[in-house]
């Protein structure tokens, strides 16, 4: 940790000392999430979502491993094996609903986590690496969730897999061979189902590994904060434990309440009814839609309807991947020296416009590919790209930021309207 006033680990119990001398794991934990990690005292609740993402990953891994004990990755029996879990495995219905809704809640908290970073400029120096690793996690999450959704082998599983792998078919020349290679056949079948299961089991552990790097990179400069200004001294921070462990504990409680309310009382609200119909390659569903957390990207994919030099489908594929890839360049697109959106009046307006824009894209992505949804998604997708690639670079150059407080402590005291520390 880079702050000189960070607490140092001093084992209290002889056993801990014995372990720490031989394997400094207690020290590592103390410095990473214990009293040895000083954190700005002014974090708001948006800083809870990192820990909540970790909790969601843990829930997915635990429920997923037990589900895998009862699931059969074979096209002939996969659908029925899931129903077997729902009906005959003890508490199997709870495991399955916990895992399916856990994926949705994972995306909810990660999206809030990402938008927190966008608003407070967390992607800027010196936290670029934290941001980049976060995006790697996000891509891995999307791959994991996509393959997981294929496993129950319902209608949307099958047709979703077909549409998404079909995107690779848009690549000129090598597209079709790549698609066939990915699927192990010309259409999703047993080979695809098996490899998706294998990878779906593997990737969460890769994610766990990248999260370790993400947090490691975070702990070099330490957490940012709602003012976006740097920590100046010990008075600006509190030790992670007990202060933020307590706050995260409360946040976790609220998260679990919302999650369990859905899990137990509306477990299918975020799913698609067609996935309760067994996969049938001969019957195409009326509207093929992915899970809700992919809707904004799906809308971008479908917004390109005209061949212009490249085929429309290829444009859609490039734009869909581009919409995520461009986030990797964000630290170098937004050059404003001020991090927090609270002190950037113009940026702040565009930020909220982006939030609304992404919600509109999501709505259109979940709707059938008909007018007016296509036209609306064309406008919304245009704003999405314009926002990051054109508006942000210009705004960051033109804008006059508001005066920043001198220190975190000053900002805190000002908020409380008195001078005593």
């Amino acid at each position, binding site marked *: 940790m880079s702050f000189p006033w960070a607490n140092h680990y001093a084992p209290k119990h002889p056993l801990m000392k014995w372990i720490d001398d031989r394997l400094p794991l207690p020290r590592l934990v103390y410095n990473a999430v214990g009293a040895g990690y000083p954190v700005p005292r002014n974090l708001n609740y948006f800083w809870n979502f990192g820990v909540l993402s970790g909790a969601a990953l843990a829930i997915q891994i635990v429920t997923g491993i037990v589900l895998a004990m009862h699931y059969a990755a074979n096209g002939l029996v996969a659908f029925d094996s899931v129903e077997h879990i729902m009906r005959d495995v003890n508490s199997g219905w709870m495991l399955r609903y916990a895992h399916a809704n856990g994926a949705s809640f994972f995306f909810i908290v990660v999206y809030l986590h990402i938008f927190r970073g966008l608003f407070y400029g967390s992607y800027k120096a010196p936290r670029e690496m934290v941001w980049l690793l976060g995006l790697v996690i996000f891509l891995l999450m999307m791959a994991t969730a996509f393959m997981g959704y294929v496993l129950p082998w319902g209608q949307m599983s099958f047709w979703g897999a077909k549409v998404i792998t079909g995107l690779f078919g848009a690549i000129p020349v090598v597209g079709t061979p790549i698609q066939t290679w990915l699927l192990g056949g010309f259409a999703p079948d047993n080979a695809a189902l098996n490899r998706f299961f294998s990878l779906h089991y593997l990737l969460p552990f890769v994610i766990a590994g990248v999260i370790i790097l993400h947090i490691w990179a975070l702990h070099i400069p330490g957490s940012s904060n709602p003012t976006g200004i740097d920590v100046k001294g010990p008075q600006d921070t509190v030790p992670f434990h007990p202060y933020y462990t307590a706050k995260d*504990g409360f946040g976790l409680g609220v998260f679990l309440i919302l999650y*369990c309310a859905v899990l137990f009382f509306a477990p299918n609200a975020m799913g698609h009814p067609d996935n309760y119909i067994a996969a049938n390659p001969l019957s195409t569903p009326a509207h093929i839609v992915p899970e809700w957390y992919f809707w904004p990207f799906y809308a971008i994919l479908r917004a390109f309807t005209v061949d212009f030099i490249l085929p429309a489908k290829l444009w859609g594929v490039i734009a869909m991947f581009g919409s995520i890839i461009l986030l990797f360049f964000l630290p170098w697109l937004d050059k404003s020296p001020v991090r927090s959106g609270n002190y950037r009046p113009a940026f702040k307006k565009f930020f909220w416009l982006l939030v609304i824009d992404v919600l509109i894209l999501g709505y259109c992505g979940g709707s059938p590919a008909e007018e007016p949804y296509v036209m609306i998604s064309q406008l919304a997708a245009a704003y999405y790209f314009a926002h990051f690639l054109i508006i942000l670079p210009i705004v960051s150059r033109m804008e006059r930021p508001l005066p920043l407080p001198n220190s975190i402590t000053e900002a805190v005291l000002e908020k409380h309207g008195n001078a005593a520390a």
Partner: protein
Amino acid sequence: MVRPIAFLAGLGFVFVLLFSLVTGAVAYISEPPAKTAEHEFHLHPKEVSFASDGPLGKFDRQQLQRGFQVYKEVCSACHSLHQVAFRDLKDLGFTDAEVKAIAKNWATEVPSINPETGEPATRKGTPADKIPAPYANEVAARAANNNALPPDLSLMAKARHDGGAYIYSLLTGYQDQPAELLKHFPDAKTPASLHYNPYFANLNLAMPPPLAADGQVTYADGTKSTVDQMAKDVSAFLIWTAEPKLEKRHATGIAVLGFLLIATILAYLSYRNIWAGIKH
């Protein structure tokens, strides 16, 4: 370097999107998409309530038994219920002996082999068996139904939006094709082999009205078997077959939420307590 390239890429995407938008808008105005009969005449499911609705919902066992009777005496002629085993029927309040009798007397027998010759054969059902399907395979099912396939009903209540209400509406929704429809969409006349039903996605359904007359089944508990009552009962039964663990889920949910509420209040108080001296 990053910013000029980004700027160009941004302009490129925006240009192609707006080009698509204009092309689409022109096409939309010059050739507005034709209205379809499905679009104009399809109806959302009727309002109907079941005992299992809501966070505290429980099944009405009497109703489930009646619904099972409707399935057994009417629907099971065409529709399988392939996820449900006879033993599961104990959930409806049947005794072991009753379940055994139901299994043994089921209209279709369970596929099996002759223990002496190894030839395909059938045998009487037992509680451990899944409810046997009415047809041996899809070809047989289609052959008997004008080439339409009666789908398995086990998960029907979850495989349609608002499933319970949808099944009820479908069963009670058969009617003559409205004159309005034929006036505006003369091509959309229901073919002779199909039946008009505005609750079905494409309005014309291959299933003949299965519940056609009051008194089609005779309920053991004396309830009057109107078409409406039978439709409601069989819908309730199919909500159960789709989600047999619903009551357990609701009960567990209440306990879990109660626990989490208390734990979260305690976590909040300890958070306030720890931060008491610190302005933030």
